[in-house]
């Protein structure tokens, strides 16, 4: 196992959403690829600024929905027409119009569960511990402060130079994040 860098990254703190989005833009432009930004609410366009473009959640939801719909319909078909055909009021065993409601409900159910579980899994959550929590000031990231981090795994990362670069973005504070 490779020896872990004792430093996880360098983190800069900003006062406003606008300052964070500008800083993220500048950092990404400067050639840093392994960066992340933290904010107390979703900021439109911020994910794109740090180089995040592929959001697989919709695909997961689509697959979940298709599986739900198919399994809902096939379940009813198999139970009513194959496994135990029962004549009820002279209706056909395969009464497809009557099967639509449950097919619809199962589609929604599976798609909804996929949306939540897919989002959590792709985000790597639950993860109660994370190195960024080692920074005491980071507790304001869920209130009114905005943070940008450059990970030490970035190719361009250099403790002194990166710190100096971040200082040039006029942050409120800079801290090293121990891993």
């Amino acid at each position, binding site marked *: 196992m490779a020896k872990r860098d004792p430093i996880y990254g360098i983190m800069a703190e900003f006062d*406003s*959403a*606008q300052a964070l*989005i500008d800083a993220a833009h500048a950092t990404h432009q400067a050639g840093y690829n392994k960066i*992340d*930004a*933290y*904010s*107390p*609410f*979703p*900021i439109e*366009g911020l*994910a794109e*600024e*740090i180089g*995040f473009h592929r*959001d697989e*959640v*919709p695909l997961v*939801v689509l697959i979940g*929905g298709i599986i739900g719909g198919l399994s809902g319909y096939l*379940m009813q078909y198999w*139970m*009513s027409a194959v*496994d*135990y055909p*029962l004549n*009820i*009021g002279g209706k056909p065993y395969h*009464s497809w119009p009557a*099967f639509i*409601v*449950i097919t*619809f*409900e*199962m589609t*929604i*159910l599976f*798609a*909804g*569960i996929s*949306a*939540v579980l*897919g*989002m*959590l899994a*792709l*985000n790597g*959550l639950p993860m*109660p511990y*994370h190195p*960024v*929590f080692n920074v005491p000031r*980071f*507790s304001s*990231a*869920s*209130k*009114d402060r905005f943070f940008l981090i450059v990970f030490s795994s970035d190719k361009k990362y250099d403790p002194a130079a990166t710190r100096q670069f971040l200082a040039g973005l006029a942050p409120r504070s800079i801290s090293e994040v121990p891993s």
Partner: protein
Amino acid sequence: MNEPYKSTIDADRAPVIEPGHTFGTVTEKISAIVLTRPASNGWFVGFGIAFMLTMMLLFAVGYLFLKGIGIWGVTIPIGWGFAIVNFVWWIGIGHAGTLISAILLLLRQSWRNSINRFAEAMTLFAVACAGIFPAIHVGRPWLAYWLFPYPNTMSVWPQFRSPLIWDVFAVSTYATISALFWFIGLIPDLATLRDRTENPALRIVYGMLSFGWRGSARHWHRYETAYLLLAGLATPLVLSVHTVVSFDFAVGIVPGWHTTIFPPYFVAGAIYSGFAMVLMLAIPIRKIYGLEDFITERHLQNSAKVMLATGLIVAYGYGIEAFMGWYGGDRYDAFTLWNRLHGPYAGPYWMLLVCNIFIPQVLWIRKLRSSPVALFFISGVILVGMWLERFVIVVMSLHRDFLTSSWGMYYPTRWDWMTYIGTIGMFLALMFLFLRVLPAISIFEMRTLLPEAEVKE
């Protein structure tokens, strides 16, 4: 000349958040209700009463399990008494939460941000109350799981051509999706509570519940996608749930049930009663917890307008039912209409018209739409009216069907009332607890409404 017109516009545009708030003050104000504010005596009294009513519910249900549904007023021909009336009433109330959180989100109605959280909680608790009734009215409630398709030694399956089994799927899907929607909405706010609390044990609890949320931009991006997709899924779902509930009746042939107008008019009625419940909860909550800055006059007015609109749809539904009874030429339908107006249950029917159609028309008056006290009482009237509507549909249709030999009367017993009032107690007890342990207003969505949240690319 222009002056009155101008003030009209301004009243319409009451702000969603009162000016002067920042990310910090919004966060502190909402999280303080949970973290630092001690529970008042009023809270203990309110919760105590609600808790005692919940115990009464447990007692009534326990005795029911011991004796069977003979302790209720249900008899043939009225096999669906209070249980189904209350089921439909509660599930209807639940609809406003999903409407506010999903449909208004898709329509970009940002004022929803301050009321969606507790409206969703209200949905969950209402659906929980609703779910009790079908489970206990089946006679042998310990076999209620027979409703679900599971491999069993009898090797039989549910009857998928029946609306009743559709309803099982619709309501359980609705409960699941509402719970998920509510929970993922809570994740960022639970992280806020984790970071704000000074109690180490609570920090661990909120930390676990928040799944270690840290507000990363990548996470937010996926989060918003998932939230939007869930809203898109919940929107047809919420419209389908009460539609399927109405199928329980409309697919039957009983006069008074066999009507194609049922689905839209049930959905409108559900939203009508749901908003009435939202207002009945929001008005005292904003007053007691000093949240007038976040739940403003604008919210009250908009909710009142939704009630007025859906109330008119419901009135149209009653009108069409009556018109069809008179014009349709079916003597049984005609008799149902006559029986509603003059029969043994004419009292509840006229009360229903007064509560659901006549009294809510005062909402046309702007002054009353912005008066919390007036709205509180009108909402109460609407909730009574919507309960009577379900009573009229369930009991009045069943007590006079095709053959005079199968006519009967339904008289609820004290056990019916105890169960019904007990669920109201359970609903309120859950609401009281919710207010104390979780943020009643979505903090992160409130932050996005502040002017300082705006960014330029």
